[in-house]
């Protein structure tokens, strides 16, 4: 059932590629149907598999001579992330409903690329054969480029190229590591589980791990390789930003966990020496993650472009994910996976508000310009959506982000107490930049009387469309639901994390 997410998306993309131009307006309806079907498949698969561990989905010999199989399987972590992709896809299409109204929009190409990207992402989350995983990972790169370069806004060609090149460079690093592992293990299998059991020599793991981890972490926006993220997210059209920040960055983190940490767990072992307190790759990457948390938050605090604030906040939140993964505790990794889901939803909501709801109507993202527009009164819906999304992003209890961040910090306390405190600091700065942006954009103290004493008129904007409302409800509702009842997801995540190789979970007690 879960495999249909992939097949439906790619089939949809192919159909849309040859969609007649005359049916431009109908392209989005078709795309929405495909996305909803994918979401339904993901949801169905999630519910049907609850309580079971790893569910095998497909296994076909592909290139037997090289030991490469088309193997799909889903454990709890994959199921949760597939669900996230489904939600982000539906919301993204709903928020792109205005593409297809005008003739020159090239709507069918937009949605074709969109669905191709979604298909690739589904594939990565479900693949168990490393070659297959890599194929899907790379498939996702090209649609990203076109989505941004054609339909984007600020510096779109530069942003698109930067994003594509960074992703490709990261994947090249990963490929080197994978090839080396494949060759070392005898070149007869690419199956993740089989390779994970192979006893790679520790010296091999010591260089393969950082290489593959960094390759994936580039896509996850780890500092200092994060620079593609703010540029790319700002340049991208709303739906693409939602997907990029919401789902594609999670591909990187997923790869870090599923490939780098599972195949080469001894790469995390302490070295024989210690330099300024750094004694292992684990500490190095945890330090980079924490720097990312604080740096992303601090830079977001001084941005004047609304979208850049959100872009940098994504970098900051992904830092939490990476930190959680590196705590090597069950609670930390649980938190990291939950944060992946939570941030995916929240980032989608934030970008949608800034890009689709505000920018489409006001045509500006500059906070100083927005502060004069009395948006709190002109667009109350947008204001309140942003408040909710902002609260969720800050990690306010009641929304999904809180549980995730608490778990990450709990795990970090055990592994790197200093980093836990710094991460807490990051939360505070997070509150600050969210609040600042919200204040300036929606609730600024702009004068309501102009120089002559007459009331400054509140600008009129197009009303909020049904599609936007539906998508907001979907995303905000999910975040609230998971915030209040995280058991729904944790029941799937926790057993999957427990099942990770024992060598990986070294820190502390099971909870």
């Amino acid at each position: 059932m879960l495999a249909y997410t992939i097949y439906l998306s790619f089939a949809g993309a192919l159909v849309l590629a040859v969609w007649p131009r005359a049916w431009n307006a109908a392209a989005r309806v078709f795309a929405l149907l495909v996305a909803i079907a994918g979401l339904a498949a993901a949801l169905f698969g999630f519910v049907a598999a609850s309580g079971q561990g790893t569910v095998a989905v497909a296994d076909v010999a592909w290139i037997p001579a090289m030991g490469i199989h088309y193997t799909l399987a889903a454990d709890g972590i994959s199921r949760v992330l597939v669900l996230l992709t489904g939600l982000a896809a539906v919301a993204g299409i709903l928020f792109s409903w205005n593409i297809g109204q005008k003739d020159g929009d090239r709507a069918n190409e937009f949605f074709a690329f969109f669905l191709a990207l979604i298909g690739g992402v589904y594939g990565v989350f479900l693949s168990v054969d490393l070659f297959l995983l890599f194929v899907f990972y790379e498939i996702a790169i090209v649609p990203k480029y076109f989505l941004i370069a054609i339909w984007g806004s600020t510096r779109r060609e530069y942003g698109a190229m930067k994003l594509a090149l960074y992703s490709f460079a990261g994947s090249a690093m990963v490929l080197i590591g994978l090839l080396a592992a494949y060759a070392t293990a005898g070149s007869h299998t690419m199956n993740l589980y089989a390779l994970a059991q192979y006893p790679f020599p520790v010296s091999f793991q010591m260089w393969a791990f950082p290489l593959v981890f960094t390759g994936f972490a580039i896509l996850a926006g780890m500092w200092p390789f994060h620079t593609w993220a703010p540029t790319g997210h700002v340049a991208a059209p709303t739906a693409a930003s939602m997907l990029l920040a919401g789902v594609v960055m999670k591909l990187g983190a997923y790869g870090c966990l599923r490939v780098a940490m599972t195949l080469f767990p001894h790469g995390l072992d302490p070295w024989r020496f210690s330099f300024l307190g750094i004694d292992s790759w684990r500490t190095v990457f945890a330090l980079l993650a924490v720097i990312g948390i604080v740096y992303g938050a601090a830079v977001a605090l001084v941005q004047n472009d609304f979208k850049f604030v959100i872009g940098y906040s994504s970098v900051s939140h992904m830092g939490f994910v990476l930190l959680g993964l590196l705590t090597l505790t069950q609670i930390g990794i649980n938190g990291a996976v939950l944060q992946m889901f939570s941030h995916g939803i929240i980032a989608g909501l934030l970008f949608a508000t800034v890009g689709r709801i505000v920018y489409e109507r006001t045509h500006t993202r500059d906070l100083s310009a927005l502060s004069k527009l009395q948006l709190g009164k002109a667009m109350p819906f947008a204001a309140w959506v942003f408040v909710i999304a902002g609260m969720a992003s800050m990690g306010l209890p009641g929304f999904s982000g809180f549980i995730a961040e608490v778990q990450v910090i709990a795990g970090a306390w055990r592994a790197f107490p200093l980093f836990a405190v710094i991460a807490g600091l990051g939360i505070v700065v997070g509150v600050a930049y969210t609040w600042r942006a919200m204040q300036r954009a929606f609730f600024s103290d702009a004068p309501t009387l102009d120089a002559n004493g007459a009331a400054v008129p509140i600008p009129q904007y197009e009303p909020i469309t049904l599609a936007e409302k539906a998508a907001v409800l979907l995303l905000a509702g999910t975040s609230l639901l998971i915030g209040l009842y995280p058991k729904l997801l944790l029941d799937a995540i926790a057993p999957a994390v427990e099942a990770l190789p024992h060598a990986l979970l070294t820190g502390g007690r099971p909870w």
Partner: protein
Amino acid sequence: MSHLLTILTALPALGAAIALMTGNRARIVALLSGVASLVLAVWIWHGIGSDGAMHFVESSAWVPALRIEYHLGVDGLGALMLLLSSIVSLMAIAASKKTMAQPGLYFALVLLLESGLFGTFTALNFFHWFLFWELSLIPAFFLIKLWGGKGRGPAATQFFVYTMVGSVALLLAFVALFNATGSMDFEVLTRMAASGELATAIQLHLGPVALWMALGVLLGFAVKVPLMPFHTWLPATYSEAPTPVTMLLTGAMSKMGVYGLLRLALPIFGTQLARMRTELLVLAVLTVVAGAWAAAAQRDLKRIFAYSSINHLGYCLLAVFAVALPGSGSQLSQTAALDGAVLQMFNHGLTAAAIFWFLSLIEERSGGLLGIDDFGGLRKPAPVFCGLMGVALFSSLGLPGLNGFVSEFLIFRGVFPLSWLSATISVLGLLITAAVILTVIQRVFTGPLPARWVAFPDMTTNERLALAPALVLMLVLGLAPQLVAGTVNATVVHLLAGWRF
């Protein structure tokens, strides 16, 4: 009835949703909801009996992976706070102007705030408690930001940021605690602290950080109550907020901080607090005295009473910190001090809310003026007003026969043996407060009547009826405090029995 506490917490939230949709009729919806909550709160108060233990307990698994339970319960302390919250909320709703911008949103936010208060006072598991603690900030922020005075922007932001920083410290400490002990439940943690297990667990898993954790927890509450010098957000916020919102802030929200100290800090970190007792007492005394002194220096009525609030809550803090004395010889004094602190929470909440209500009435009549020098001789055109406000003012002063006296007396009765120096210096606070209140009465109600106030309207019948219950309650509690004190005492005794310092 089971799930009564959940119903109580959910009721205002439901009311908020309805109020949001009804727009102009929102005030009526809010009033109805407020009355319903009050009835429920009274029911609960009567239902808890007099053994001091937890009643109306609800417990179900929520996130088993993190040992998070949906655990609610009230003892005398919690039930009293529920009663206070519902009374103050109703007063705030009644005091809100009938005509204002976006009434639907306004009353929805007020009701959400009330829901947040109920949630905080009934929660027995940290996650759940923290959820409501944080959630109550949002409606408060927006109430200040959207309906406040000229300086509302910075005031609201300051309020939010300060409280958030404190909350983060609180969160970090409790996450660390969870790491060490594997539990987020208040009752479990209290038992562990009393038996000494907690200290061992912390030492084992985290190292010698218990003191830091206690400080983190303290910071969260110190900002909320407030404890000097973390009070700087308060005067601006109280004066810029619309007055009904100030009623809520001073009447109920500040009590969240003291409640937190009594429910979380003292039981779980009692030993650490005992070690810092002297420093904390110094800060508490500072709060009492400096609060009163600053009130004396203000020229704006709202600011006077803002600082006066700081002073009054300082007494609670005094009692709370003085109680943290190791050894078992001073149980009677500890009981008295805590009795006083709990009663003071209720009394001050009631009184301060009433006073700010009166201030809002003055504000309405004076077209926004609230300086202490703007008025004079108001008892001539508005004698009833003067009389009724006088009741509230004297209660704040601590006149015997009114509720304020009982609680302050008990606090001093308890603190004196525990720490005579702090008690002695705090008496200064009493004296200065008396001076301040009397000055207010003199400047506003007596003396020459300026021409513009000749037509100062007296209280309408509606207003009298609305305020009467609060004032009657003040009298009743002043003359017959055992109505409430009995239950409170039982609760305090029960609590103290479970604490170790």
